[in-house]
C-alpha cells in the first residue's frame, strides 16, 4: 500500500507539472487556434536559463524571477517577429512555423549548452517530510505546491479578470472581440508570454526534481500533447485533470507493470488510455462542444 501511495504521489507531482505545461499549450490554442509544437523547447530553454543563472551565482529565487522575465520577453518577441506576420495565413501554416521554431530553439540550446546534463544545485534539504505514513521529499512537496498555486491563479485569472475574460472572448471570435475594442494582437502576445512562462517554470521544477537539465526535458514538454488531447484542447480544467491523470498513470504503470513486462509500459500506458478515452469522448474529457440551442 505504501508503494502505491508513493507511486501515486510521484504521479501527482509530475502530473501537476505536466498540467502547468499543458496550460501554456491550451492558452495559445484557446486564443488563436494554434497548436504550439515549440512548447517543449520553452521548457528546455527555461530550465537551461535558470541553470545558467544559478551557475553564475544568482540566488535561486532571483534566478527564477529572471527566468520568468526572460520568458515573458521571449513570448512577446516570438509573437511579434514570427506570429504576427502570419496573421491571416492558414492555421496549418502557423502550426508548421511552430514546428520549425521548435527545431531552431532546440538547436540554439544545444549550441550554447551542449548535450551534457547540467546538474542543478540542491535547492532543498534531502530530509523528507512525513505525510501520514508516506515520506515525501521536500522538493516534491515544493513543486506540487507551486504548480497547484499557479494552476489556481491562472484558473482565477481566466474566470474573473478582465484580460482573462477577453482572452476567452477572443477565442470565441476575434472579429467580435475587436468590435469591443479588444486588441487581438495584445491578447496573442499575452498568451504567448503566459505559455512561455508556465513552461519555463515547469522546466525549472522538472530540473529540480530530476537533479539537472538535459535535452530530454523537451520530450517531457511534449507530454503536454497527450495531456491536452485527453483533457480537451480548449479547457484549462482539462489541462489540470489531464496532467494529473497522465502523471499518475505513468507512475503506476511504471511501478507495477514495467517489472512484469520488462519496461516501456510507463511510456505507452498514457497513450493507451488516451485512445480509449477519445473513443468515448472525441473532444477530450472537458473539450468544448459547440452550444446548439434547440
Amino acid at each position, binding site marked *: 500500500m505504501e508503494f502505491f501511495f508513493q507511486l501515486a504521489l510521484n504521479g501527482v507531482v509530475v502530473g501537476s507539472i505536466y498540467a502547468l505545461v499543458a496550460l501554456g499549450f491550451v492558452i495559445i490554442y484557446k486564443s488563436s487556434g494554434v497548436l504550439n509544437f515549440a512548447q517543449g523547447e520553452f521548457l528546455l530553454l527555461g530550465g537551461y536559463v535558470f541553470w545558467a543563472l544559478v551557475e553564475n551565482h544568482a540566488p535561486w529565487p532571483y534566478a527564477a524571477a529572471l527566468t520568468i522575465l526572460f520568458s515573458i520577453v521571449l513570448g512577446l518577441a516570438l509573437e511579434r517577429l514570427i506570429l504576427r506576420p502570419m496573421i*491571416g495565413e492558414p492555421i496549418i501554416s502557423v502550426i508548421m512555423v511552430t514546428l520549425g521554431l521548435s527545431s531552431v530553439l532546440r538547436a540554439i540550446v544545444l549550441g550554447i549548452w551542449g548535450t551534457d546534463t547540467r546538474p542543478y544545485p540542491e535547492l532543498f534539504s534531502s530530509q523528507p517530510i512525513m505525510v501520514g505514513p508516506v515520506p515525501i521529499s521536500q522538493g516534491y512537496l515544493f513543486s506540487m505546491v507551486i504548480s497547484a498555486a499557479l494552476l489556481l491563479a491562472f484558473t482565477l485569472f481566466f474566470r474573473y479578470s*478582465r484580460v482573462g*475574460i*477577453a482572452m*476567452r*472572448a477572443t477565442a*470565441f*471570435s*476575434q*472579429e*467580435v*472581440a*475587436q*468590435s*469591443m*475594442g*479588444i*486588441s487581438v494582437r495584445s491578447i496573442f502576445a499575452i498568451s504567448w508570454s503566459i505559455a512561455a512562462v508556465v513552461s519555463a517554470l515547469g522546466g525549472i521544477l522538472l530540473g529540480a526534481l530530476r537533479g539537472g537539465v538535459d535535452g530530454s526535458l523537451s520530450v517531457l514538454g511534449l507530454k503536454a500533447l497527450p495531456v491536452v488531447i485527453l483533457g480537451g484542447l480548449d479547457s484549462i480544467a482539462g489541462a489540470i485533470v489531464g496532467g494529473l491523470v497522465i502523471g499518475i498513470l505513468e507512475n503506476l504503470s511504471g511501478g507495477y507493470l514495467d517489472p512484469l513486462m520488462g519496461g516501456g509500459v510507463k511510456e505507452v500506458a498514457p497513450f493507451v488510455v488516451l485512445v480509449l478515452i477519445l473513443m468515448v469522448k472525441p473532444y477530450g474529457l472537458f473539450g*468544448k462542444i459547440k*452550444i446548439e*440551442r434547440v
Partner: protein
Amino acid sequence: MLRLKNIEVIYDDVILVLKGLSLEVPSGRIVALLGPNGAGKSTTLKAISGLLATEEGEVTDGAIEFDGQRIEKLRAEQIVRLGIFQVMEGRRVFEDLTVDDNITMGGYIRSDRAGLRRDRDLCFDYFPQLKNLRGKLAGYLSGGEQQMLAISRALMARPRCILLDEPSLGLSPKLVQEIFGIIRKINEQEKTTILLVEQNANQALAIAHFAYLMEGGRVVLEGETDKVKANEDVKEFYLGGTGGKRDYKAVKSYRRRKRWLS
C-alpha cells in the same frame, strides 16, 4: 458628427462593393440606412468601425471623419476608443461567456469602476429581463435576449455613436417594437448618436430623423424621414406598398429613377 465622403470599399483586392458612398450622421440623431440584401449596408458599418480588416476588406478611396478626425486607416480597437461602437449583424454574443461577462467585455476599454458599475445597472434598467440571466451562458439565450445583450454591451462602452446592424433580424414583431422603443430611448436619454441599418424600413423610419436608401453600393435616395416615407418608390418597395397593385409602370419609373440617381 460622422461623415463618409465618397468612400470606396474593395474586398479581397478585387470585389468592389461600395462605389463612392457619402453620408452624414449628425451628433445626437438617429439616421437610418436602408436597402435590399447585398446593397452594402453592413460593409458601410464595418468600414466605419474598422472591422473590414478582419474580412480582407479595405477602404481604398474617400474619407471617413469622426468629429473632424480621419479614421478610415485606424484599427478597430482605436476606433472603439474614439467612441464608435458597432453592434454587429446577427447579435454575435460571446456564446460561451456568461451574460455578465459579455457585459463586462462591452466595457473593456474603460477602467472607471464606479462608472462601469453604474452602467451595468443602467443596462438592467433598459433590459430588466437580462438581470435574471446574469449567470447564464449567452449561447443559451433566446434571440431577443441576445439582441438585448448585444445592445447592452454597446451601452457599457459609453460610445458617442452606435452603429446598429439589423437589430430586428429574426425577432417577433412585438419584440422588434420593444427593441426599437429602447433604441429611441437610448438616443434621447444617453444622447447617443445612432446609425441604424435595417431591412425593416417601417420600424426604422418610425424612430429615425433622417434616412438614406442605398442600392448596389451607392446612396440612391436621402432625406428627412417624412420625405422619405412619402416617396412613392419607397412606399412601393420598402414599406409594403400603398395598397395598390405593383404595376409595371411603377417598376419602370423606379428603375429609371435609380439609373438617374446613380
